[in-house]
C-alpha cells in the first residue's frame, strides 16, 4: 500500500513533493554552507593570530639563573622551531652631536641581538634607512637625536665611562609593545608604552659594552630567549590557546622557576578566541534566521497542500485505512521529501562552496565539512517530520471524515493573537535592545589570560524577538485587512477585477489564511534579506573605514626620517595621473608633561578632500563641527580620551605642549586649548595622540614641513598611483596604498572572508524572498485550479481569470514588501547596534545596500509575475478537462 501511495504521489503530485523538498534543500544548504564557513573562519583566525605574532615566546631568564641552562631547556622542548638569546641593557641616556648641536635623550634600552635574529623573527625589525645589520637606531630615537646612518652615538653607562658606536641603520620595531613587555607581570602592571629611546647592537658589541655593567649593576641588564614554535595547532582558536598555554606552563615547570614565559602566541590566540566567539554569534544572527525561514517556507508549502491531504486522508479513512497506516503513509512521504531535500541541499552547499570559495568544503577540513553536513541533514529531516508528518498526525487525531472534506475552514482567531503575544514579543525585543545598546555592554567577553570566554548569547533574543514579533504583527494586520477590511479590499480590487471584485474579495477573505501565511513569509524573507545585506554593507563600510584610518587615504606618502619634504612635493604628487587631491599632514612628537605623544597638524578646511572623517572618531562634536572649530580657533586641539582622563581636562582648558622648534632644534612650549576628544584619526596610532591646526603649529614652531601626504585617487587604481609615486620619490618617502593595507589590517575577525559569506547569505536571502513569494503563491493557486475551472465553465474569460489570479499576487506583493521593508529597517538598526562590537571603528551611519534591495524587490515581483502569468495560462485550459482531472 505504501509503495502504491508513494508511486502515485511521485506521478500525480510531483510538484507538491518537490516544492517541499526544495524548502528543505534551502535550509540544509544554508546550514551546511554557513557551518563549513564558520569552521573555516575559525581556522583562518588561528592562522592569522599565529602569523601576527613576531615572537611566540619571550622566555625571561630569572636573576641568578644561567641563561645557557634555560637555552638548553628551550632547545629540547617539544614544538620549538628555533630560538635566539636577546640581551637587554639599560643606559642612562644616548647622546649625538649632529649639525652643530648636541642632543641627549633620557634613559635608553640597548638590545643585543644575534646575527640570526632577523631570519628567525623577520617581522620584529624593519629597516627604514641604512643597512639592516650592525648598530641600529630606532626611528623615534633617531628623530630625538637628529641622527642618521653614519652618525656617532654615545652610550652612557651607570658608573662606567661612556662608549661610542656608529649608527649603521634606522629601524622601526612594529611589535615594540610586546617586545618590551614586562614578562610575567599582570596586565595592569605592564608599561604603558615601549621605551622612547632604543638602540640595537650585535651581541658581540653589546657584550663589550654591557658585560662590565652586568658585573657592577646586574639590575640594569637581563636576558631573554626568544622562541619560535612550530605552530602545529588545533584549528579552533580556543583549543589552540589552551594547547599553547599548557605548553608554556609545562616549559616553566621544566625550568624549575629559572624562567618565565611571555606567551605572545597565547595572548594572540586569546584575542582570536573572542573573535571566534563573535564569528559564532554572527553565525547565529545571520545564518539561523535563514534556516528558520527555509523551515517556515517548507511548512507553508506543506500547508498549502493541507486541504487536499486532509481530503485524501478522510477518503482513505472512509475506505477503511487505519490510523497506523495513515501515519505510515505520512511518515514515508516525509522521509522521501526529507531525503530528496537533504540530497539537493548538500549538493547545493557543495556547489555554493565551489562557486564562492573555490572548494566544495569551503576550505575547511573534510571532518568539519562532514560534521556540518550531517548536522544540516539532521535538521533537514527534522523539518520534513515537523512540517509533513506532524500536521498529518494532528489532523488524524483532531479531524473527522466530514471536516476533512471541508475546503474552506472558518478562520478562527488563534490564542496567541487573542492574548497579544505579538505585542509581548515586541516589547521584549525593545527591552533587550535597550539593554544591549547601553554603555558597558559587551557581546563577547574574553578576559585576558582566562581560558573561559563569555558570549552574551541572550543578545540574540533581541533581533530574534523582533523578527518573530514582526512576523506575528504582520499576520495580525494582514488578517485584519483581509478579514474585517473586506469592503476596503473590494474597492481596492475593483480596478483589477471589475464587477468580480465582490466575489474575489469574498473568496480571498474566506481563504485568507494561506495568503496571510504567504505574506508573513514574504515579509520575513524580505526582512532577513534587508537586515543581512545592511549588516554586511555596514561591515564592509567600517572595514573600509578601518583601512582608511590605518593607511590615511587611498595612497599615503610618508617622509623618511630626517628627510624633509621639498616645498613643491604636494604639487608634484598632485601632477601624477590618477591623483585627485593631495593633503599634507604634519607629524610631530609632542611632550605633555613627561609623556611623549604623536601630534598631527592638519588643514581643517581641506583635510576631508583626501580622507574620510567619521563622526564616530570624535566625542564632543561632529567631525565637520570640530574641523570648523580647529579652523576658526587655530590654537584649539583635539586630545585622546586617555589623556583627558589622565590630566583631568575640561573643554576649554589650556594645554601646554613641548615641540621641537624648527629654528632652534630645541623643545619649545606651545599653548593650545582643548576643544574635543579624538579616538581615531587617519594614520594615527591606536593609543594617545593630538590633532591640531597645521598653520598654527607651523607658526609656533617655525616648521611647516609635512610628515605625510594623503592622496585621494577616488578609490581608483590605488596600486598604480602608489607605484608611480614610489618611482618618483625613491627612498625619500614611503608609499602605502589602501588596497595593500586592506589585506593586512584589522582583527582576525575582519580577516575572515566576509565577502564570501556575504555572497552566500545574500544569494540565499534572494532565493528565499523569491521562493516565499512565487512558490507559495503558485502552490496556493494550483490548489485552487478547480475554482478557476468552474469559473471558466461558468463563462469567465481570460481577462477575468487574470484579474482573479493577479489580485492575489498584488495583495501578496504589496503587503509582503511593505511589511518586509518596515521589519527589515528596524531589524537592521537593531542588528548593527547589538553587534557593535564586531565593527572597528563603530559605525556612525548605517550603510544601506540600495542596489541589492532593489534586486530583491525586483526578483520578488518578477517571481510573483511569472507565477501569475503561468497560473493564468493554466487556468485558461478547457475547464472540463481540468474538472475531470481534479
Amino acid at each position, binding site marked *: 500500500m505504501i509503495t502504491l501511495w508513494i508511486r502515485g504521489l511521485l506521478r500525480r503530485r510531483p510538484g507538491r513533493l518537490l516544492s517541499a523538498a526544495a524548502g528543505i534543500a534551502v535550509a540544509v544548504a544554508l546550514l551546511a554552507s554557513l557551518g563549513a564557513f564558520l569552521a573555516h573562519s575559525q581556522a583562518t583566525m588561528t592562522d592569522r593570530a599565529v602569523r601576527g605574532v613576531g615572537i611566540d615566546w619571550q622566555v625571561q631568564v630569572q636573576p641568578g639563573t644561567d641563561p645557557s641552562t634555560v637555552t638548553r631547556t628551550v632547545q629540547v622542548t617539544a614544538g620549538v622551531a628555533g630560538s635566539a638569546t636577546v640581551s637587554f641593557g639599560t643606559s642612562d641616556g644616548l647622546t649625538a652631536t649632529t649639525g652643530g648641536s648636541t642632543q641627549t635623550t633620557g634613559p635608553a634600552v640597548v638590545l643585543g641581538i644575534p646575527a640570526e635574529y632577523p631570519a628567525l623573527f623577520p617581522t620584529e625589525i624593519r629597516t627604514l634607512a641604512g643597512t639592516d645589520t650592525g648598530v641600529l637606531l630606532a626611528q623615534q630615537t633617531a628623530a630625538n637625536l637628529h641622527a642618521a646612518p653614519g652618525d656617532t652615538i654615545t652610550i652612557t653607562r651607570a658608573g662606567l665611562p661612556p662608549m661610542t658606536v656608529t649608527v649603521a641603520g634606522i629601524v622601526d620595531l612594529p611589535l615594540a609593545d610586546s617586545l618590551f613587555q614586562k614578562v610575567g607581570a599582570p596586565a595592569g602592571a605592564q608599561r604603558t608604552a615601549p621605551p622612547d629611546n632604543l638602540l640595537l647592537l650585535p651581541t658581540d658589541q653589546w657584550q663589550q659594552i654591557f658585560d662590565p655593567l652586568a658585573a657592577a649593576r646586574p639590575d640594569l641588564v637581563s636576558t631573554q630567549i626568544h622562541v619560535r614554535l612550530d605552530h602545529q595547532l588545533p584549528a579552533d582558536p580556543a583549543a589552540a590557546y589552551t594547547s599553547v598555554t599548557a605548553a608554556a606552563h609545562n616549559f616553566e615547570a621544566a625550568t624549575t622557576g629559572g624562567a618565565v614565559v611571555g606567551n605572545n602566541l597565547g595572548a594572540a590566540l586569546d584575542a582570536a578566541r573572542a573573535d571566534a566567539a563573535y564569528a559564532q554569534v554572527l553565525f547565529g544572527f545571520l545564518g539561523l534566521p535563514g534556516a528558520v525561514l527555509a523551515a517556515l517556507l517548507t511548512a507553508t508549502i506543506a500547508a498549502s497542500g493541507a486541504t487536499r491531504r486532509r481530503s485524501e486522508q478522510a477518503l482513505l479513512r472512509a475506505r477503511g485505512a487505519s490510523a497506523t497506516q495513515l501515519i505510515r503513509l505520512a511518515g514515508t512521504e516525509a522521509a522521501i521529501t526529507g531525503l530528496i531535500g537533504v540530497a539537493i541541499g548538500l549538493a547545493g552547499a557543495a556547489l555554493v562552496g565551489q562557486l564562492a570559495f573555490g572548494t566544495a568544503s569551503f576550505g575547511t577540513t573534510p571532518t568539519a565539512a562532514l560534521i556540518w553536513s550531517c548536522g544540516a541533514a539532521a535538521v533537514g529531516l527534522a523539518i520534513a517530520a515537523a512540517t509533513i508528518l506532524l500536521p498529518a498526525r494532528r489532523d488524524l487525531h483532531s479531524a473527522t471524515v466530514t471536516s476533512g472534506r471541508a475546503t474552506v475552514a472558518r478562520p478562527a482567531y488563534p490564542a496567541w493573537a487573542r492574548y497579544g503575544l505579538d505585542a509581548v514579543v515586541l516589547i521584549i525585543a525593545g527591552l533587550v535592545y535597550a539593554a544591549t545598546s547601553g554603555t558597558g555592554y559587551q557581546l563577547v567577553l574574553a578576559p585576558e589570560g582566562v581560558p573561559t570566554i563569555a558570549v552574551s548569547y541572550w543578545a540574540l533574543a533581541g533581533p530574534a524577538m523582533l523578527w518573530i514579533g514582526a512576523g506575528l504583527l504582520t499576520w495580525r494586520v494582514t488578517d485584519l485587512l483581509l478579514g474585517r477590511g473586506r469592503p476596503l479590499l473590494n474597492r481596492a480590487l475593483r480596478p483589477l477585477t471589475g*464587477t*468580480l471584485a465582490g466575489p474575489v474579495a469574498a473568496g480571498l477573505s474566506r481563504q485568507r489564511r494561506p495568503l496571510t501565511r504567504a505574506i508573513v513569509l514574504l515579509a520575513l524573507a524580505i526582512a532577513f534579506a534587508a537586515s543581512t545585506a545592511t549588516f554586511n554593507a555596514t561591515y564592509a563600510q567600517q572595514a573600509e573605514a578601518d583601512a582608511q584610518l590605518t593607511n590615511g587615504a587611498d595612497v599615503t606618502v610618508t617622509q623618511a626620517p630626517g628627510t624633509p619634504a621639498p616645498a613643491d612635493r604636494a604639487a608634484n604628487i598632485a601632477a601624477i595621473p590618477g591623483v585627485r587631491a593631495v593633503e599634507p599632514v604634519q607629524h610631530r612628537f609632542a611632550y605633555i608633561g613627561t609623556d611623549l605623544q604623536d601630534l598631527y597638524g592638519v588643514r581643517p578646511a581641506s583635510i576631508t578632500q583626501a580622507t574620510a572623517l567619521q563622526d564616530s572618531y570624535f566625542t564632543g562634536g561632529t567631525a565637520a563641527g570640530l574641523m570648523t572649530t580647529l579652523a576658526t580657533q587655530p590654537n584649539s586641539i583635539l586630545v585622546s580620551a586617555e589623556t583627558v582622563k589622565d590630566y583631568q581636562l575640561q573643554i576649554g582648558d589650556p594645554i601646554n605642549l613641548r615641540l621641537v622648534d624648527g629654528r632652534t632644534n630645541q623643545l619649545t612650549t606651545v599653548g593650545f586649548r582643548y576643544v574635543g576628544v579624538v579616538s581615531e584619526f587617519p594614520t594615527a596610532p591606536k593609543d594617545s595622540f593630538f590633532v591640531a591646526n597645521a598653520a598654527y603649529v607651523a607658526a609656533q614652531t617655525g616648521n611647516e614641513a609635512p610628515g605625510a601626504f594623503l592622496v585621494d585617487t577616488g578609490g581608483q587604481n590605488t596600486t598604480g598611483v602608489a607605484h608611480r609615486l614610489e618611482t618618483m620619490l625613491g627612498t625619500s618617502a614611503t608609499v602605502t596604498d589602501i588596497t595593500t593595507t586592506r589585506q593586512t589590517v584589522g582583527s582576525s575577525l575582519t580577516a575572515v572572508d566576509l565577502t564570501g559569506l556575504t555572497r552566500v547569505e545574500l544569494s540565499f536571502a534572494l532565493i528565499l524572498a523569491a521562493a516565499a513569494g512565487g512558490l507559495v503563491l503558485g502552490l496556493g493557486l494550483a490548489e485552487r485550479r478547480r*475554482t478557476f475551472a468552474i469559473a471558466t465553465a461558468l*463563462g469567465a474569460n481570460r481577462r477575468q481569470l487574470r484579474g482573479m489570479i493577479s489580485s492575489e499576487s498584488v495583495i501578496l506583493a504589496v503587503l509582503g514588501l511593505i511589511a518586509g521593508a518596515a521589519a527589515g529597517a528596524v531589524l537592521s538598526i537593531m542588528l548593527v547596534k547589538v553587534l557593535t562590537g564586531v565593527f572597528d571603528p563603530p559605525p556612525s551611519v548605517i550603510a544601506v545596500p540600495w542596489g541589492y534591495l532593489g534586486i530583491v524587490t525586483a526578483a520578488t515581483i518578477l517571481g510573483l509575475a511569472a507565477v501569475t502569468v503561468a497560473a493564468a495560462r493554466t487556468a485558461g485550459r478547457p475547464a*472540463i478537462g481540468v*474538472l475531470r482531472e481534479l
Partner: protein
Amino acid sequence: MNAASPLTASPATPSTFGTPAALVSCVDVAHTYGSGVTAVIAVHGVTCRVLPTTRVAVTGPSGSGKSTLLHLMAGLETATAGTLSWPGLGGHPLARPGRVGVVFQGPSLLPALDVLENVSFPLLLAGHSDQDATRAARESLHRLDVADLADALPQELSGGQAQRVAIARVLAARPALILADEPTGQLDHHTAALVLDVLLQAADELGAAVVVSTHDPVIARRLPTQWTMRDGLLLTGTALGHTAVPATAVPDTAGSRS
C-alpha cells in the same frame, strides 16, 4: 462554429421558413479524447438540433457519451469532427455567459463563496452590476426554495441543497438553454424528483429549453423526448419540434466514455 470535417449527413428535418432557429445544432459531430493508440472516441457522428423550449432526456449507460454530448452543446468541449453551431444563441455560449446554463454532475459550487455569491457569480461574469446580480440571485434562490441558505458555504450544504443551488445559479442568468448532466445522479429518488420538478418548472417560467442526461429511466420518462446513446452514437430521437438523427453506423472499436 466547429467545422472539423465536411458534412456527410443532412439534418433529418431541415429548417423551414417560420421554424425558430435551433439553439444548438450538431452535424456529424465527434469528440475523441487523446490521440494515437490511447485515443478514446466519446461521441461519434452525432447529428441533432435543440430548438427553443424543447425538453430532452439523453439516456444511455455509463460511458455512452451523454456527458460529452452535453459539454459539446455547452461549448465546454470542442468537436474533433463535424459541425457544431448555436444559431439560436447568436454565437458560442462562452462568448456571452448566461445564455446556456449547465448543471454539472459533481459539486460545482465555488467553495470560497457563499450560496448567494455563487448564484450571482455568472451574472457578474456577464457584466451585470452587483445590485442586479444580487437581486436576480435572491429571486432565483427563492424560486428554488433555498433562500434561507444564502449565507451558507457550499461545504455546509447537503447534496440535494447543493444541486438546487447549482440549478438556482443556472436559472438566475435566465438562460435559453439548460443542460443538466446527471443532475440527480447523487440524490435519492425523492430528492431527485423534487430537484427535477423545480428544474422543469423554472424552465417553463423562463421558456428555456432543457436537455437532461440521465441513466435513470424514471427521470427520463418525466421529459417528453428521449434520446438514447450507446458507445458514442446517438441511436434514436423523436419529439415534437426537434430532431435527433441516428448517426451513421460505424463500428466503435476504440471504446467510449462519458
